[in-house]
């Protein structure tokens, strides 16, 4: 067993556990959006960042991918951590304002509104990619993927046109953390066509 401290509390971890595993085993809450047990951790949403302190130095790491190590000093609610989470959540409020999950999480961090421009009030997709990763890693259908890069990134099937690779299993709906997929469920269900979130620019 490895011994470390989280928020001042002595905890133990099995070798191979991540910091997120360790925290959750010890009933310490760390928020996540792009994480799901069923697929490889991705480290993208960065809501799960925690602060590692080594002497006077400190840095933030994504707890969903960072391995537990002997003697680590971990802080899950430091000012630096909260600053990162608040900004991400405020920016998500402008990107995907329709997501209730995002609004709830933002409210927990005192973020009730956003100073940034709302481009699409209907948008729920946060581009965590869980749907595509699950489709590939769990279902093996590989029907959807991320498309493009940077701020114009989307989720979709090749050419953003429904294809035959989708087996309409609905797994993407169940893993979607914001309900973005659910909103499109009727367009997908029963049709062996693809699920598209955030289609178009």
């Amino acid at each position: 067993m490895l011994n470390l401290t989280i928020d001042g509390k002595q905890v133990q971890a099995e070798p191979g556990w991540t910091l997120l595993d360790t925290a959750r085993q010890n009933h310490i809450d760390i928020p996540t959006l792009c994480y799901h047990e069923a697929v490889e951790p991705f480290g993208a949403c960065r809501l799960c960042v925690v602060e590692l302190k080594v002497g006077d130095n400190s840095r933030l790491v994504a707890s969903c991918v960072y391995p537990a190590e002997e003697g680590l000093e971990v802080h899950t609610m430091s000012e630096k951590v909260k600053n990162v989470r608040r900004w991400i959540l405020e920016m998500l409020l402008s990107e995907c304002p329709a997501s209730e999950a995002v609004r709830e999480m933002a409210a927990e961090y005192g973020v009730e509104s956003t100073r940034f421009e709302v481009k699409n009030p209907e948008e729920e997709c946060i581009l965590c990619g869980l749907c595509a990763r699950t489709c590939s890693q769990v279902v093996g259908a590989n029907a959807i993927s991320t498309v493009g890069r940077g701020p114009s990134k989307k989720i979709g099937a090749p050419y953003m046109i429904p294809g035959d690779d989708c087996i309409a299993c609905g797994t993407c709906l169940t893993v979607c953390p914001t309900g973005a997929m659910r909103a499109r469920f009727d367009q997908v269900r029963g049709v062996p066509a693809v699920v598209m979130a955030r289609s178009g620019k």
Partner: protein
Amino acid sequence: MQATAKKTGQAKLGSLEELEQLRGELTAAVDPDQTLIVVCHGTGCVANGSPGVTEALKKALADAGEDIKVVPGIKTTGCHGFCSRGPLVIIKPAGIFYQQVKPADAEDIVAQTIQKGETVERLLYKHPQTGDTLSTTEEIPFYAGQQRVVLQNIGQIDPTDIEDALRAGAYAGAAKALTAMQPSEVVEAVTKSGLRGRGGAGFPTGVKWGLAAKHGDVEKYVLCNADEGDPGAFMDRSVMEGDPHAVVEGMIIGGYAIGANEGYVYVRAEYPLAIKHLEMALADARALGLLGENILGSGFNFDIRINRGAGAFVCGEETALMRSVEGKVGEPVPRPPYPSDKGLFGKPSVLNNVETWANVSRILERGWEWFAGLGTEKSKGTKVFALVGKVNNVGLVEVPMGIKLRNIVMDIGGGVPGSDHFKAVQTGGPSGGCLPWEDADLPVDFDSLIAAGSMMGSGGMIVMDDRDCMVDVAKYFLGFLEEESCGKCFPCRLGVPRLRETLVRFSKGEGTAEDIDDLYSLAEAIKMGSLCALGGTAPNAVLSTLRYFRDEYEAHILEHRCPAGVCKDLITYSIDPEACTGCHACFRACPQNAVSGEKKKPHTIDESLCIRCGMCMESCKFGAIQVV
């Protein structure tokens, strides 16, 4: 590429002795006193027309026919560095340095210099301050202040000819490592040399190798990061174009040291000449048995493959680069696991950049003690910089670590056109920062640059003058990074555009002092929260310009003024009636019909129609158009 082996009649080299014997024969076959005309065929000189110069020289030599007793050779080489003076022609062994040579000059060079041994006065470099005419390379301040280690052979050798490279000592370091040293001794030598990675962060190279070497007998890889993406940086391109063997040799050494049998060079597709020369170097090295099975009889097998980049800046990040080599989307993955444990194809891998690999070759050739004697205590060796922007001598320079910024820009670089100081020097590419004139005496090394809020990066050094706006520069870099963000992690994908939008508002004279505080807070979140260094360093351009040029930000926000006259929304164009000749050029150039005036009488610009495209200014030959 069988040509080389055929030319030398050389079978594959089976031992160190055979390599040295070949080197000796090749060297003896060349008379060092014979006149040689060297023409620079680096990308800069080629774009300026140097191939035409080479052809004209060949023709002039042929036309002179029997008038020349000993016909000189013509050698085309990689970049000499002094790109702003190209095309460059150097006459050896005298070392006469001709600059801005045109094909029409070829006849005079042959008639006067080759036949009579006289210099062609008009082609010589004139010292901009003293006005003295300088005839040889060594006398020119641009070269005199440099210390060439990585660039030592560039401009000397024909990069497409392995024989010429061998004469200059190529593969001596690799031969020594493979035949006389244990892999662990090679790692130790590189560690003791103090070499730090030249790609950006400055991680100790030997330490990195040691981490991969400890994995024992498993498949491993070495990689060369030649995806030089920083705008304003072309060091690596010049090394690959001008001395590709230095990179190949370094990778052989690295492969041997960590126990890898395969190497990959990931090179920008925008560098076709570099790719061509690398491919030739690999083929020639294979033909001589310097790559392949049982190199020099050492029992070590190693070969290298080239991957062309497909146009994504983020692939300069090591984990993204490895995903790209695997044929995947170039998104970075979190570390740990580090590539030295789990890298390319999940195997222990070592990635270094072009300049680092070239340094490895030199270290093994000349010994780590020599290298450790160069530079400063914590930054050993030299650094190659691409010196560009508002500086007289634009080009490639190599200087010892620890040299003052002032020496690079004002002495080697010849200063700023029309000014006795620079406004800012940007180092480290989009991840770096802008250093002000007050920092002119800053020693240029890894740690001093970080402490000053910038970084070494791969070696772009962009000089800015009073006509460059720091808000615009920060906005430019953020726009670049926004476009190049892979979009995987949220702080970078969402945060960088928000930073840029704030700067766009500033550039329009909008915004409040409060926005600056928010900017700091968001920048901190992006730096701390991002997955990779692209996001982690993205706010640097804003933070460093805010740190040193806050006045300029305030002028935009509070006074709605762009002091440098750059930000479109805060400037107006006007015509100086004294200088305007009424030539009508601006009238014709203006796409908005905003310029009016009769021919031969001063013109005026209707501000309400002007879209500030600058076409009038570009078309004016009399400097009559002003920006206020």
